[in-house]
């Protein structure tokens, strides 16, 4: 210490360097500025602007009117409900199918590499491209899906034209595109389970079903948590697939919050659109945060 003080009279830089940490906090700075200006600040600002009538250049404060409207207009409420349905259906199917494919593709099945590639590739493909392709494949009379169903004598539904089916059809395409990700996550989880456990269980006389319920399922739990959280987060904010397939139609039957936000934005109702955005934040936070705490806690308890 005395040395440092003594030296500070003459050459300042040498002692300073020896004190300086090799891990400076300013390394955060570039990332922090971009993040704060373009993500954090707009997010905070949205809380205010959701309570205004807003033209981007000036605003009138109107309190909670936008939110009242959001929960009163039937088609906006429908968007809210649809978002929940969409997120639940897609993440539920991704968990079930992902686990199934994951187990199949870690077994000694033939052509494993081919199957893994084929299931995973759609994850990397443009969502809009997938949406356009399936819109054509799901055409009620000429689409490949219904033509194939007709071959075996089944009447094909109007996948995207039937108001009761449109949202689910899009959700199915979402699963088609996303199940590969769930599968590789499950593969990573299942491969990390020590083989000895299965050996021991086999010796103890456990059959395949028991091995699944007592070994695979509980020990692949981190993978399940990841798949559930990832697909819920993705499902709740999903926009591009729905927009490229149905534009929220027929009517408003396949609208979700994200498409409502876009529609209100296009119509110039910036305040209302931002209110939709805030509703989406709240919904994501209310679902994801408690769920991830609960899922991770039970993991620790084990």
């Amino acid at each position, binding site marked *: 210490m005395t040395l440092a003080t003594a030296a500070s009279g003459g050459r300042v830089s040498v002692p300073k360097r020896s004190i300086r*940490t*090799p*891990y*400076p*906090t300013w*390394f*955060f700075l*570039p*990332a922090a500025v*971009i*993040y704060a*200006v*373009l993500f*954090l*600040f*707009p*997010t905070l*600002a*949205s809380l205010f*602007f959701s309570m205004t009538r807003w033209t*981007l250049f000036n605003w009138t404060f109107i309190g909670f009117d936008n939110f009242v409207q959001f929960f009163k207009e039937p088609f906006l409420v429908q968007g809210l409900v649809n978002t929940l349905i969409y997120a639940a259906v897609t993440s539920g199917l991704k968990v079930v199918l992902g686990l199934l494919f994951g187990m199949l593709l870690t*077994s000694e*099945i*033939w052509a494993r590499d*081919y*199957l893994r*590639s*084929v*299931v*995973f*590739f*759609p*994850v*990397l*493909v*443009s*969502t*809009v*491209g997938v949406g*356009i392709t399936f819109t*054509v*494949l799901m055409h009620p009379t*000429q*689409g*490949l899906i219904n033509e194939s169903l007709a071959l075996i004598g089944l009447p094909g539904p109007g996948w995207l034209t039937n108001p009761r089916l449109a949202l689910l059809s899009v959700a199915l395409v979402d699963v088609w595109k996303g199940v590969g990700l769930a599968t*590789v996550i499950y*593969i*990573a989880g299942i491969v*990390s389970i020590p083989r000895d456990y299965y050996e021991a269980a086999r010796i103890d006389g456990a059959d395949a079903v028991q091995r699944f319920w007592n070994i695979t399922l509980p020990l692949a739990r*981190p993978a399940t948590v*990841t798949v559930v959280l990832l697909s819920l*987060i993705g499902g709740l904010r999903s926009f591009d697939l729905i927009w490229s397939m149905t534009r929220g139609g027929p009517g408003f039957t396949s609208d979700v919050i994200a498409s409502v936000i876009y529609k209100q934005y296009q119509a110039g109702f910036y305040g209302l*659109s*931002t209110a939709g*955005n*805030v509703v989406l*934040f709240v919904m994501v*936070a209310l679902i*994801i*945060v408690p769920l991830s705490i609960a899922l991770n806690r039970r993991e620790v308890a084990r």
Partner: protein
Amino acid sequence: MSPQRRYLSGLLAILVSTVVFVIPFAFILLTALKDKKESALRSFSWPASFHLWDNLVQVIQARDYMLLTAFLNSTILTVVSVTLMVVFGAMVGFVLQRRPSIWTSIASFFVLVGLIMPPAVVPTIWVLQSLGLFKTLHGMILIEVAYGLSFSILLFRAFVATIPRELDEAATIDGAGPLQLFFRIILPLLKPVVVTVIVVQSVAIFNDFTNPLYYLPGKQNVTVQLTLYNFQSMFDTSYNLLFMNVLLITIPPLIVFLFFNRQIVAGMTAGAVKG
């Protein structure tokens, strides 16, 4: 499994997966090869005559070579934003892992927020507009960096933990400052995870549709996904051209998939087995 059952179940799996996952891509390819009249039938059939070159030229020439502009823009957008994301993300991940302090807890919190929360679109447009960045490629690049940083930081932080601290100390004793330590010692050692981040984020940004739709409207700045979206209504009756476009847009991810499959899977499954 007995060998016979193994082949049988494998055969069945190949059959089902081909029907479900390969036929849609085959449909894209076949439709892209047909002429306008035949493609309008929406049928899954071998083309009566092949029009690969015609369709390709027509799609490229459409709207004043819009597709070429789009590919150029998307390439610039992807390359620049991924580069920034790698450098800035690795800097944060490095310090975050090495030095627990109040700042690192705050940063970790915001990383999580960035992973979970959807962006507030209209206020972001407002901010971009006041900065003069709305409808510019620069603004779009920064947006992609802002949205992608969280995921990159997470991957970098996990990987930095595998690099021994002794290296930092040795470099520091030899007189390396923080910047030298990071860029000359740490960043080269991060190479495997850098490749993973580059590949995963490139695919994500190249395929991004929603953000350019909001922040980069206008003919000058189209990206490939926006072009496809525009062509969807424009080529309403020319499925051959529409699907030629889909085909062209599918090629870059296919190339990435063929060469970097392992890194993509590694990046996307990170965190799945942390238990």
